[in-house]
């Protein structure tokens, strides 16, 4: 029996597998058993009602997808009236992702959402689609520390910071989140990107640029998780291109204590369950009694040379 429970960012989760904000909603309960998930992470909530970006909002790329959803939000009332009661029917803890245009806005929204039934706050200080040029709090350590301090003062709940990969030094930003009292960092959101339709000469997305996600970004985000793991002591949630249990293992080895899965769920709605089952099998096969023992187990000091497999074992 493999112990799948993990301690991460002030929470104890039954297992380290959870959905990524904005890629998960009630509808998935028509296919998979929600009670198997490590946690629920809901679509980022904002105070004001928002329409989101113009269509088209999605485009395919090599090994990934572009999205420019923005944050269409039904607002706080809907969260209390519909979202919260729905998830209270299940056992996994609910992590509320929230966003605001100002530090004040973040703080007051966090305070308002700190209610029974919400287990932690995931501050999406990184969503790259809202402004055309993709600016976000999490692009600098300075503004990250500022907004996280306000958030820390505003809620007693575990506080997670969802970082953006669109920065030159993500380890520095993670340090700022930790210094301001954050309990975990989620690494990371989508990479700002675009594509162009060579028939129409127009961007494939209505908002021109959007966020790249899926397997294409996995090596980049994995590197950022590795850099953050060497910079902070608080927990790291790895999120970027995870489609298989082996992908999740790579993130744990690089230093993550838990993982979030987004785009893969669009391709295979069972991805969350498949990765969870695969993780348990992997630990069993490799003799790990606790999935938590994989965290940071990367062996440094240069990889082995590929040995001449095709020339036979004793070659």
């Amino acid at each position, binding site marked *: 029996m493999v112990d799948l429970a993990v301690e991460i960012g002030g929470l104890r989760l039954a297992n380290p597998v959870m959905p990524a904000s904005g*890629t*998960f*909603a*009630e509808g998935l*309960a028509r*296919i998979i058993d929600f009670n198997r998930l490590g946690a629920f992470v809901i679509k980022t909530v904002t105070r004001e009602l928002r329409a989101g970006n113009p269509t088209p909002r*999605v485009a395919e790329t090599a090994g990934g997808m572009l999205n420019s959803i923005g944050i269409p939000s039904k607002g706080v009332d809907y969260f209390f009236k519909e979202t919260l009661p729905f998830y209270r029917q299940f056992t996994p803890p609910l992590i509320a992702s929230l966003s605001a245009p100002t530090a004040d806005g973040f703080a007051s929204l966090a305070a308002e959402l700190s209610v029974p039934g919400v287990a932690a706050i995931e501050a999406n200080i990184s969503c790259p689609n809202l402004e055309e040029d993709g600016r976000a709090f999490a692009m600098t350590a300075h503004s990250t520390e500022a907004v996280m301090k306000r958030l820390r003062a505003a809620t007693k709940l575990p506080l997670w910071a969802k970082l953006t990969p669109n920065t030159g030094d993500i380890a520095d930003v993670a340090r700022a989140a930790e210094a301001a009292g954050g309990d975990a960092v989620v690494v990371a959101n989508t990479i700002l990107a675009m594509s162009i339709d060579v028939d129409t000469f127009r961007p494939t997305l209505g908002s021109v640029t959007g966020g790249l996600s899926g397997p294409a970004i996995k090596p980049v985000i994995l590197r950022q998780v590795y850099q953050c793991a060497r910079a902070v002591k608080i927990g790291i949630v790895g999120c970027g291109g995870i489609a298989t249990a082996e992908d999740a293992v790579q993130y744990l080895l690089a230093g993550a204590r838990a993982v979030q899965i987004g785009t893969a*769920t*669009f391709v*295979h709605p069972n991805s969350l369950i498949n990765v969870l089952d695969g993780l348990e099998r992997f630990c069993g096969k490799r003799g790990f009694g606790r999935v938590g023992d994989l965290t940071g187990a990367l062996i440094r000091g240069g990889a082995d040379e590929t040995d001449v497999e095709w020339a036979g074992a004793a070659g």
Partner: protein
Amino acid sequence: MDAIGVTVGSFPVAERAVPVVSNRAVNPEYMHLVVAAEPPATNARPGQFFHLLCPVSIAGAPFLRRPMSVYAADPERGQVEFLYKLTGAGTRGLGALKPGDRLDMVGPLGKGFTLEPGWRHIVVLGRGVGLATLAPLAMLARRAGVDVTAILSARRPNLVMSADLFREGGANVVAVADSDGTSAIAAVEKLLRDLAAAGKADAFFTCGSNRLMLLTQRLGRELRIPGQVALEQQMACGLGMCFCCVREFRAGSEVEHRRVCWDGPVFDLQEPLSW
């Protein structure tokens, strides 16, 4: 089933890799695919769709799934059918499927068509693959003893698809085409007014043409005839999670976004804005 539309603990949707029974060209542009399936797939209702993982082919490697209306679903025979147009990497990948190959599909998804008890005569208007979406509705209506007039539009008469299928189903088929002008809006409007006058249009159902949607919206408002329209939009998740597939709708004086995959693809005829 609460406000959110999900009944906890029941799993009406599934992801399954099912065997292909047949996959034949019906004309140079369209193909007809039959797969062997079980519930919940075979419970698919007219207007619902499946999200298909299209195989890699020389046409490319589709990353996302492709939405496809159920053309027929039969629990007894244990089959689900699709009628699709060869367009890009996804549908061309589908086109390469051979009997025995496996197709990974998620479904049934979305809200289908509904028939009000009071209706005796309905009119379905479709074009191109819009017909794939309307065909199973016509069948259902006939089985429910409702008369169906099917106005099938195409560029040329010989391109009109599924006419026989509608006829066998007992529908009264009117084929119209661009080539002889019979598909012109004015001509189709005349047809519809005559049907309405003859009391043969308790409701309009349309799919696949913005022009036909606008026409039926206008006549529906004027003649107080209800209706439903099936819309399409690019999709990622197909399960109401990502908000990629929104379109604009009238909500009183407001304009609001709704998800084609979750709130639709079938909507009240009067609500969608022109696209």
